Structures are given as structure tokens and as C-alpha cells.
């Protein structure tokens, strides 16, 4: 599902939930909502943040109750809090995100030791130049300072990686930027892809460190 599909699905769920949503100005009034950074197609998520601007508050429990009934299969409400009027939006507070990458049992070349060596090499590099192509053009940037943590998870034989990377308005890393670099350094060939990538959590910066937002 694309980010646009996701936004549309949530907007419709909010309308079905019959919440007193504030609308945007203009000829096409939309529900006033803001979303956490787009999830790349093919990546799963356990954490998506949505700010919904309400005209009046029926209370967090009531909002949650109505929304739960209106969400399509595959989407689950994790938590719902009422924020004070005029505060910053959740999405503007985001500084980092964590992802889990599973290479899967079928990916026989991606042995844990091979992946671990690739991670070590990556973390020791002074700079990792990568380029990203957007509709606006191709942009070069250094990935290294945007990776805050990267480690191999000890599991049952198949390699899994956990990463904490920059996210939000001040700098944003996509998980595939990092996995592509791991795949390259592990010598797995350009076609090798992880079986599964999951966004786990968003983080804010507080007391000199990253803290889970929820």
C-alpha cells in the first residue's frame, strides 16, 4: 500500500467513525490530519502516528472506541491520547525511527556472521555516500551520521538486524538505504533483499537521548 492509499484509508475510517473532525479551508475541505513520515511500499509497520484535529473532544476513550470499529482489516489502533490545543504535532517532534530487518531462512547467503561483519564495516566507515532519486532530482548525502545504532539480533539462525536511524523533518533515512548498504558490503549481490522489514517505533529527543514517543 502506498502512503497515499494509507492516508485515504485513514481519512475514510475517521469519517466512518463519525468523529467531529476539523476540516481544511478551501474548495476541497479535507479532514485536518497529519501523518508520520511515509512508509516505503513493502515495509510493514507496528507504529504509525496520526494527528487528528477535532472540533470538540468526546474524550480519548470514546474516540478510540469509535475508531476501532471503523478501521479496515490489517489496521489496529494501538493507543489514542488527547493533546492540548495548539501544541506541536506528533510528526514534527519525531527525530528517529527503529526498524527490524529479517533476512529470512531462504536467504542462505545472508548468514548471521556475514551480516555482522558487514554491519561492523559499515559502522567503522567515516562516510557512506548514497544518492536518492526523487521526482525533484537526484540528491547525494552521507548516510553514516544518520545511523544512530545498528546491530545484529541473536536469533534462531536467520539473520535479523535492528536499526535506529534519523527520521522526521530534520533528516530522514529510509530503511532500504541501510539494508542496501548491508547487502552490498555482505557481497550478497544486488538482487538480494530482506524477506521482511518492519517499522517498530518512533523516537523523540529528550534529556540528551532518544526516547520512544509512545
Amino acid at each position, binding site marked *: *500500500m502506498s502512503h*497515499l*492509499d494509507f492516508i*485515504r*484509508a485513514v*481519512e*475514510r*475510517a*475517521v*469519517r*466512518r467513525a*463519525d468523529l467531529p*473532525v476539523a*476540516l481544511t479551508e*478551501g*474548495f*476541497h*475541505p*479535507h*479532514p485536518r490530519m497529519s501523518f508520520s513520515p511515509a512508509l516505503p511500499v*513493502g515495509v510493514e509497520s507496528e507504529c504509525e502516528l496520526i494527528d487528528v484535529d477535532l472540533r470538540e473532544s468526546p474524550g480519548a476513550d470514546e474516540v478510540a472506541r469509535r475508531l476501532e470499529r*471503523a478501521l*479496515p*482489516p*490489517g489496521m489496529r489502533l494501538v493507543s489514542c491520547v488527547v493533546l492540548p490545543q495548539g501544541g506541536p504535532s506528533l510528526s514534527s517532534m519525531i527525530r528517529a525511527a527503529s526498524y527490524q530487518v529479517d533476512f529470512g531462512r531462504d536467504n542462505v547467503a545472508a548468514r548471521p556472521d556475514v551480516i555482522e561483519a558487514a554491519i561492523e564495516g559499515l559502522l567503522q566507515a567515516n562516510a557512506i555516500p548514497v544518492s536518492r532519486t526523487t521526482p525533484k532530482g537526484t540528491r547525494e548525502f552521507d548516510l553514516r551520521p544518520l545511523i544512530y545504532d545498528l546491530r545484529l539480533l541473536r536469533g534462531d539462525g536467520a539473520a535479523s538486524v535492528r536499526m535506529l536511524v534519523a527520521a522526521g523533518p530534520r533528516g530522514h533515512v529510509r530503511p532500504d538505504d541501510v539494508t542496501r548498504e548491508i547487502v552490498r558490503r555482505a557481497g550478497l549481490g544486488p538482487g538480494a533483499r530482506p524477506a521482511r522489514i518492519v517499522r517498530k517505533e518512533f523516537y523523540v529527543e529528550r534529556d540528551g537521548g532518544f526516547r520512544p514517543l509512545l
Partner: protein
Amino acid sequence: MQIDSRLLDEILEVVERPARYVNGEWNAVHKRLDEVDVRVLLAFPDTYEVGMSHLGLKILYYILNQRDDVACERTFMPWVDMHAAMKEKGIPLYSLESRLPAREFDILGFSLQYELSYTNVLAMLDLAGIPARSEARGADDPLVIAGGPCAYNPEPVAPFFDAILLGEGEEAVGEIVDEYKRARRESLSRREMLEVLARVPGVYVPSLYEVEYREDGKIAGIFPTSPAAAHPVQKRVVRDLGAVPFPDNFVVPFAEIIHDRIMLEVFRGCTHGCRFCQAGMVYRPVRERDLDDLCELARRLVTSTGYEEISLMSLSSADYSRIRELVSNLLQRYSGSGVAVSLPSLRVDSFSVDLAKEVEKGRKTGLTFAPEAGTQRLRDVINKGVTRDDLLEAVRAAFAAGWQAVKLYFMIGLPTETEDDLAGIVNLAREVLACGREELKRGRTTRSPQVTVSVSSFVPKAHTPFQWHPQAPMEELVAKQDYLKRSLRGKGLKLAWHDVKASFLEAVFSRGDRRLAAALEEAAALGCRFDAWHEELRFDKWQEAFARSGVDPKFYANTHWNYDDVLPWDHLSAGVSKDYLVAESRRAAEGVPTPDCRLGKCVKCGVCPQLKVAPRILAGPVEGVS
């Protein structure tokens, strides 16, 4: 048994738009298939995005799933990449809801919306592992049935279907399911079951008729071979739309579909009587829904779907006799909650522009009008009751209201068309453009008007006054398009046109008979599918298919037929009498228009007495039931 989900998930990672092939949409119905008596699979022979935009599918899905003894699921034609991947991995056609192979359903119901989807029907049957021909199916195969506008001349695909429903399905689907259950309970043979079904009014069982041909290729006669087979089969029509269910919830897809909004059908049928228009003939009589019912349906649909737009559907929604009340009621109720209202079809008049102005508010993307022909003479021939003044008044109102782009629909190759009529298209387009310049200047805007002329090629359709008329040869249509391309150049003018090859194939199959089934099988074997998709149409393969099967496509598309010829669809009745069609055809030749029956005078088309129905127009009585 479900299909191999692991295998499916693997290919879903590599195909375009995988959301087309997985379920999990809001409002999709999941039943335990082992707890129902009859499992029905609705099959749409085009992509998910096209099929999910079709109102008929939503209506039947809703009605069938309301029954406790039935589970109804959906399947669509997989796009080219998915089709190839499924063939390669051995994944059969399956239902979205339960991932159950199509051949494990009891009834497989195809929607036949346009002739160019016929090869997709064959591709889907092939993917399902179900024999293409009805005669080759056995007791273990599902009953393969069809419905939709192509049912009014289904002859080219008749050998592929066990039964075909003519007309509206709301009431008939339930009867078909009941008769199917009874036949199975009584352990009837397949042939006996088909005879039982043939006794359901509106159900046509092609295998119960024999067609004989003359030496010149025309049809000598069509003969029922069973006492169960009606001659003619009479279409089904719902007398009171308010008395049959209309869905109060729609499946809401994740992926964006073509008509991604609430479709609210305001009425069925049309009274204008355009002589080329099959929908205008076969959906008679006009039946409006109650205003209160529509408002209540809109309310329930907004709540159950969360959609942000309500589209008022019909063949010509401005005709709804209480359209102003309906529009203002909906706008009043929903404009505060971000739900818009839209009107997909406009008449050529300023009343329609006023309505559009009311619903479109600021988002003036473009208005479309369909004068259909370039001169008054030809518009009288086709009975399009629109004058040059109507058009100019309508576009003037549109430009004055702030629209800047106008699209005009025309047909080329209409019966009796001359060079003057083509020049008339060019002149009208230029007049509209000049009118736009004037109005926009008056409005003191710096924007300049845009006029897009869209031309399609006339396709003769069964059960219309032009059914005897040939389509112009392809070379002639190309020459006419070239003339328009040369003449409609310059700032503010744009021309869009349809591929004449596709129009030719459409004409072949719209007037086709059973001998074309072999050509369809050849074409499908040669890899033809998605013929309605310009980039997928393989005309060279089609020519090869016609040659291999020994049928001459021009006999169907380009030959003039006589009033006393037996037509391939003469055993099927849409309620409109042949006498009326002949009379209309003669009036066309003389350029005499026929007034709208809404205005009070019955045009004697035969539908009301034949089907024992009456037009239903909320405001003002309509005569015409004799």
C-alpha cells in the same frame, strides 16, 4: 481447498499493484463457505480497478450475500504480469475473499459490459481450469452464467455460457439460485438443470436453441430445441426500484479504483431516444427512485463507507425530475463534513450547467457535453434533440461561471454522414472556442479557453434503430479522423480519437452470431486479451484468428442488413418492438426527430405493454401506457 498462499505471496511481491489481488477491503463479506448451500463467484473480465467501479457488481454482491444460504465472492481478470505469473506457477483463478479456486464455486457469474472483454472471459475460464464451451463441462464444473448489456446480443459468446440473464438482476439472481438449489436437490442432470433454469423468466440457455444459416451467410432461422426454451426470451425489468434492495454499504478498496466514490443510482432508463444508443433502448422504461429513499441511502452509504464523494448516477442525471431538491438536500447535509456531490453526465443545456455550478463549487476541472453530430440535419437523423443554440448557450453559461475547459463528444461514421457533417464538427468546435474567448475576456481573466473534441466511431448495436446499419469501413473512418486532425489545429483546440481497430472489433461482436465463437477461441489461443486497453490490442493476431476460423469480420461490421433479415438476436427481446425500431430507422432516413415520451406523447416503443410496466417520473404524470 484454498490455493497455495505462500506461492501467491511470492508473486505478489513482484507484480504491479498487488493490492488488486488481496482481500482485506472494508465491507468485504467473509462467510464460512462450508456453512452455505450455494457458493457464487462474481467474475469481472477486466482489471480490479474497472470491475470494482461497476455498480451492478456491487448490487449483486450485496443482494446475494444478504441470503444466509449463499456466499458470494469476487474475482477479476489479473493484469498481464499477474496472469503470466499465475500461469507459470500454476495458480488458478481464485476468489479474493477466501482464496478459493474459481472452479470450486457452484456458480460463476460473468459481467459482460463490453464486447472487447470477451477474450478476457476465455482467459479467465482457462486460468480457472474450466472448459470454455458449455457442452464440454461436466457435473463437477460450476454453472457458468452471464449478464450485463452484452446479454442483449450474446451470440458470439453464447457457446461459452450455460445460461445468460437478460435485463435487470435484482430479482432474477435469487430465482436462479433457488432453481439451482432445487435442481441439485433433485439430482438433475446438467441438461435437466439447464432446462429448469430456462424456465426462469429472462434466462436464456443458448444450448437449447439451434441456429440455421443460409447460403449467403445470413441466418435462416433460430429454433428452440426444448419446450423449456422461450422464444423470444423476454428481458427482466424491476417494476419498482424502491422495492428491491440497493446496497447500503460498498466494499471500499485500499487501492484507488476508477470510480472511487459512492454511486447513488437516481433512476434507471432514459427517455431521450437517441437512435444509436443501446442503453437508451434496452433500459426502458425510465424509473425514478424516491427522493426520500435517495437521501436515506446517501446517509447510510456515507456512514458505512467513509467515502468523500457522492456521485449521482444514471444515463442523464439532470433528467431526474427532482434533481434540484436532491442536490440541495445533499449539499446542505454534507458540505460541512467534507463530502462532495458530483454529476457524471450533463445534458447540453444551461440548466445542467447551473446544477454543475452548484455542486462543483470551486473545483472547475472541465465540463463535458455530447452534441454527438456536427449539423442539425445529422442530429435530427440520430434523434439527438440538441441544437447549436442549446450548445452555445450551455458553453456560454459554463465559461461565464468560470470553467475554462470544455470537452465535446462527437461520433463519426454515423448513418447518412457527409463531408458537411464533419465540417460541422469543426465549425461547432470553433464557435465554442470563440464563445469561450468572449466570456473569459468579459470575466477579465487572463486565462484562455480550452476546447477538446473527442470523436468516437459509430458502432451499430443490437436492439437499436441503427442495428441494420453497417459501420463505415476502417479506411473511411481513418480518413475522417485525418480530416479532423488537420482541421482542428490551433491554440485552444485539442482532438482526441478512438482507435478504429478497436471500434471495428466492437462492431463485429456487437452484431455477431455464434460462428464468431471460434474466432474468439483462436484469438485467445493467440494471446489476445485486454483488447479494450489500447496498448494491449493485437490487431494482427485478430486478423489471423478470423482467417483461421474462416469467418469474415466485415460481414458483421460492414454489411447492410435488411429489415426482413433474421438477426442473430431475434430470439431475444429487450421489450422494444421491432416495428418501433423499423419505424425509427425510417424516420432517421427522413431526418425526422421523435419527441421524448416524457413530454406526454407515447412513442409506441412497445416496452410498457410488453413488459407490463410503466414509466415512473416523480414530478408530473407521464402518459404512454396503453
